């Protein structure tokens, strides 16, 4: 059996071969399993934008974008398999949409020289470009998220939260544990009491944690959840009558799928946002004309305008802008992964550029530099309006507490550099 498989797959790799003179971008998506509800809209948005660029502009700088989809099921083993299967085909950039897979890929991709972009997830200390040459996490990261949430709580309480209790309800994985250090530091700085409630992945079972919340009545609950965990958490919150406007989800716990099952009881639920959360943008007209009407949507075409679709779209926009920048810097349209990395490091997103792209005010302006791979760390708060069936931004973009975060990032990234004998760049 093994032999016949070997020959079959060998023939296959020869037949498929690297598609020359195309810009290859793998999409490690997950449309199955307990995280599918979050993975499908993201992947649809991500792929649809590349389709739009191909159909409308004929690619970037004359090169068509070649997208390879690979199903991971949010499983790290399959993620590694997908990475190995696609990296030989000239992959320019990986966006795995999974913190677990990101941790796997950081050392591998750094060794292979392929950039990774983790938009609002992944390893926070990768913001330090001096250590992480190949990893980018602009425009904001998990720690920014935690800090912006606390900032919002401060604003609501006129700057004094020393008598408040904030509970962190988190996915017990690398993803959910990320904000703990930050919240501990912030609790020291602002004097609030910080409690932790881990939920075992995938998170369908949260009864005991919510009983504890009902008993202790923390003033705020910050939710770091993903996939099936989010709707369960919001339903449980409604069941124990926890006030929705005192819950703040990370941007991964703020999509329509998460609030829909709780119905009207989810009205007023708050979540962080790092970009616009609706479809009021000129680019949607183009998507309709070039992608939807031609029947080229990646999925069923029913996700347009949802929060996570927008996030996929945003990831793709930033990828395409980085490709443009890379082509400009390299002076050639057929760029290599190393040139792509240079492009990402020189990326500058301005309001003007976003308007040109048909996305005025979609996300904050930011600039990537050699030292700073994480952008500025701006986040806003959105709130679910059940009547209208949409999330609405209720604050402006706020700057995270860099005074607290910068030393933490420095410390964590330098520890990584020391462990792995990395020489600091950008000196």
């Amino acid at each position: 059996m093994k032999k016949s498989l070997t020959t079959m797959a060998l023939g296959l790799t020869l037949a498929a071969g690297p598609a020359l003179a195309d810009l290859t971008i793998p999409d490690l998506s997950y449309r199955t399993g307990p995280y599918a509800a979050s993975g499908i809209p993201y992947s649809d948005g991500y792929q649809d934008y590349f389709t739009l660029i191909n159909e409308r502009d004929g690619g970037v700088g004359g090169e068509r974008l070649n997208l390879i989809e690979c199903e991971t099921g949010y499983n790290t083993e399959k993620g590694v398999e997908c990475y190995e299967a696609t990296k030989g085909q000239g992959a320019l950039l990986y966006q795995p949409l999974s913190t677990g897979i990101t941790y796997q890929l950081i050392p591998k991709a750094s060794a292979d020289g392929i950039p990774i972009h983790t938009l609002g997830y992944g390893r926070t200390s990768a913001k330090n470009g001096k250590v992480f040459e190949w990893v980018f996490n602009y425009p904001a990261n998990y720690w920014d998220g935690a800090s912006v949430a606390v900032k919002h709580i401060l604003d609501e309480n006129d700057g004094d939260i020393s008598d408040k209790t904030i509970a962190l309800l988190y996915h017990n994985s690398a993803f959910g544990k990320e904000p703990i250090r930050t919240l501990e530091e912030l609790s020291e700085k602002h004097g609030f009491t910080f409690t932790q409630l881990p939920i075992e992945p995938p998170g369908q079972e949260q009864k005991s944690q919510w009983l504890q919340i009902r008993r202790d009545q923390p003033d705020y609950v910050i939710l770091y959840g993903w996939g099936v965990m989010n709707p369960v958490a919001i339903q449980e919150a409604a069941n124990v009558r926890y006030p929705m406007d005192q819950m703040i989800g990370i941007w991964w716990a703020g999509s329509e799928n998460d609030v829909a099952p709780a119905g009207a009881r989810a009205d007023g639920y708050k979540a962080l946002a790092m970009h616009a959360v609706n479809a009021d943008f000129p680019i949607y007209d183009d998507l309709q004309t070039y992608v939807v009407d031609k029947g080229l949507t990646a999925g069923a075409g029913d996700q347009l305008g949802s929060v996570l679709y927008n996030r996929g779209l945003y990831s793709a926009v930033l990828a395409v802008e980085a490709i443009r920048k890379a082509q400009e810097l390299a002076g050639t349209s057929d760029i290599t992964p190393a040139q792509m990395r240079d492009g990402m490091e020189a990326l500058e997103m301005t309001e003007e550029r976003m308007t040109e792209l048909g996305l005025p005010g979609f996300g904050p302006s930011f600039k990537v530099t050699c030292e700073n791979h994480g952008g500025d760390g701006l986040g806003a708060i959105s709130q679910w309006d059940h009547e209208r069936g949409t999330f609405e931004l209720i604050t402006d973009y706020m700057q995270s507490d860099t005074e607290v975060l910068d030393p933490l990032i420095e410390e964590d990234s330098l520890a990584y550099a020391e462990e792995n004998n990395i020489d600091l760049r950008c000196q």
Partner: protein
Amino acid sequence: MLYREAGDFKTSYAADSQTFPLRLDRWGYWIILAVAVFVVPLVINDYWVNAIFLPFLIYAIAALGLNILTGYCGQVSLGTGGFMAVGAYSCYKLMTSFPDINIAIHVVLSGFITAAVGMLFGLPSLRIKGFYLAVATLAAQFFLTWLFNRVPWFYNYSASGQITAPERTLAGFRITGPETQAWATYLFCLAFLIASAWICRNLTRGAMGRRWMAIRDMDIAAEIIGVNPLRAKLSAFGVSSFFVGIAGALFFAVYLGAVEANEAFGINKSFLVLFMVIIGGLGSIFGSFAGAAFLVLLPVALKVLGSDLLGMPTDLVAHLNLVIVGALIMFFLIVEPHGLAQMWRLTKEKLRLWPFPH
């Protein structure tokens, strides 16, 4: 005709009791071994090693381990994932505490640590059997993964709770870390698999294996003829966990490089290894290999066939994969409850007579 014993004379006890009594089998064995050791490393690349060979080799070691416990000694265990986690975390702690020591030694030591933990969790087997023992080992599974997630000492207080394998070498070649060569990791795991299979084969056909099988077949009768159930069961737990621990250490250090206890060593892993043992064949060394190959290769093959060759949507392929693997498992269990190993045995019987059956 093709496969016959005629002319294959045995003139000593050793020749009579060897693992492969037929000359053709012996040749096949040596040829496969030679190809695996000398040819495969020359042609292997990153994709082949990471998508197919490493998972196959490592799961085969885990299946060998579980087969000793479940197949030979008759004690059902659902704690394989937890014991693999013990192997992985001991290997991590050893690697980071003693960076100068050879990685191969760390892997073997992780096996011994897991053996100790396995014997501890094997104690209830002296009192309880069958389903009840399965539940007790299930408790081990949940307790161990919870422990590794809960106590920061195990993951060296890293912010994410992940453990990441630092770069370690063997005789100057990188075995762990991101910059390994495909052939080096392959040969490293292959060496462990060959050694494990050799040890298992020789243990199971010796006095110890006979005691295990006596306990499996009827524990009261075994006790009456002088088998000490305490020793037999605990040694089975110990030996089994040793191999499972080695598999866990290799899984973490060589294959994935970074793991989370819940995600990598959850209950799914226990079931996966148990399915490998059941599909491959309980109480068979070959069965462990066949079961691991079946469950590692089939999903990859279906994926290559579905999304790369036929161009189907990836989610459809992933769902079909579940359906087909599930259906095949049922098919095999109905047609041949003793697994792939028994099918292979029957094929050999038939081949001896072919083309002139009675």
